[in-house]
């Protein structure tokens, strides 16, 4: 597992109880680099979310890596988004397709957030990133 992800998830794994877990997730969201307004175009809006979620995906050809940026108007989804960005940002498409976000969220006890009924778009985001990775592989 890549280290930026391990670095950010350590506190979530060590959190005592669900309240602390959410606190850590929201903290991650707070620390997420500001997404340039120019990137918040309709195309970047993740469909089917109760909250507003933007996910910008680009591909750096020289570095052969995924470039991701995102934002959300809710604290919790923004935190989960930060986790996803930490999971995928800077990876080669090859590496990205080998990641199972499901397993990672399961390990962190956050799997309910990947279920479609939550309507928070986490699953949609992961699917979008995976599609991009597949395409560039």
């Amino acid at each position, binding site marked *: 597992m890549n280290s930026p992800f391990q670095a950010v998830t350590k506190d979530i794994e060590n959190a005592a109880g669900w*309240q602390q877990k959410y606190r850590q997730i929201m903290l991650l969201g707070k620390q997420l680099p500001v997404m340039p307004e120019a990137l918040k175009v309709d195309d970047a809006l993740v469909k089917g979310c109760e909250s507003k979620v933007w996910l910008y995906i680009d591909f750096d050809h020289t570095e052969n890596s995924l470039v991701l940026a995102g934002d959300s108007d809710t604290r919790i989804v923004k935190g989960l988004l930060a986790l996803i960005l930490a999971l995928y940002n800077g990876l080669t498409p090859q590496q990205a397709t080998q990641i199972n976000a499901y397993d990672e969220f399961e390990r962190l006890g956050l799997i309910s957030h990947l279920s479609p009924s939550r309507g928070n778009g986490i699953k949609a985001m992961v699917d979008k990133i995976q599609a991009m990775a597949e395409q560039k592989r």
Partner: protein
Amino acid sequence: MFDIAKIRADFPLLKQQINGQPLVYLDSAATSHKPQAVIDALTHFYSAENANVHRGRHTLSDNATRKYEQARKSLANYFQVESNELVWTKGATESINLIANGLTSKLKAGDKVAISAIEHHANIVPWQQLVKRIGAELIVLPITSDLVIDAQQCAEFIEQHKPKVVAITHASNTLGNITDLAPIIQACKNINAISVIDGAQAAMHLRPNLREIDCDFYVFSAHKMLGPTGLGGLYGRFELLNSLDAYQTGGEMIETVSLTQSNFREAPGKFEAGTPNIAGVIAFTEAIEYLTSLNFQQMRQHEHTVFSYAIKQLSAIDGITIYSQHHNNIGNISFNYKNEHPFDLATLLDGFGVAVRSGHHCTQPIMSQLSISGTVRASFALYNTKEDVDALITALKNSIELLD
């Protein structure tokens, strides 16, 4: 007396634990829970009574038909109307679609259809589609600054603009605000407009006497009245109901069929094409009987006590904005905390075992009016208690602490 402990014991789902804590269910505006009698009736139907209705002369079919039609009588009794004025559908949404489609040939280009700005999308979109189909016009009735349908102003507005159809809610799903229907329906009568009342929210809480209300149509959903999902219906004043165009055609709804032409049955059969939700209808009788076994005044008094307590306790929290009217309310409270997103609050409340709903509640026009993206909605029913309110308030304070 209103024995709340006994009532709670009748609803098995309320005993659940969520995230290791006792469930506090405050989402009855989305769907109510079902008493054991309703659940038992569903199981019993499939294990001992299952047969199709209105056809087949065998014993099971006769019994199923009798119980199916008995359910219509129970409901007719509940609403104080005649059995043949009640049509079963799959829910309030389908009921409005049935009416809007059925009115097509009664309207012409240039006619007006009036709705209010606090309607559920289900009482907006079918009318938008209707006016688009026939080149009619959709007009919007006035509401007060408290987001209540303004009965006096509406009455004047209706007499002035003369819409052919007026479709409004009896109580707002988002806010719980109750509409004073009498002046509006009187205005409709004065100009011969057809009145359609969305009773999805009010049908359980207000036990409406439809003869007294005297509207032309009233729609409801069974699952918001302690009944099963996938079932609802509508009341229609018989002559008017019977004169609507058929919504769906096929088996069951016909008198005679040749290869070139068919004769339809009279209402309500005319609107019940295909095999209906027999189990749901029969189990719904138990829900209606459960509701009518409770003294209405006592039930409303209990609901009012819990609601008022919730309003008082919520108002005492600094930073909470309540959008719902504090009186004349069926028991739905929409609120926000400062600028926090309702999604975050609802997610954290769920962590504490408190089930509320967040979002626009299928009422985007209300959200635009308030310039917000959504609210947290706590909605109460007869089985909720002051203890539920206390649990909500404690969970809310703890959630706020996590957010601040």
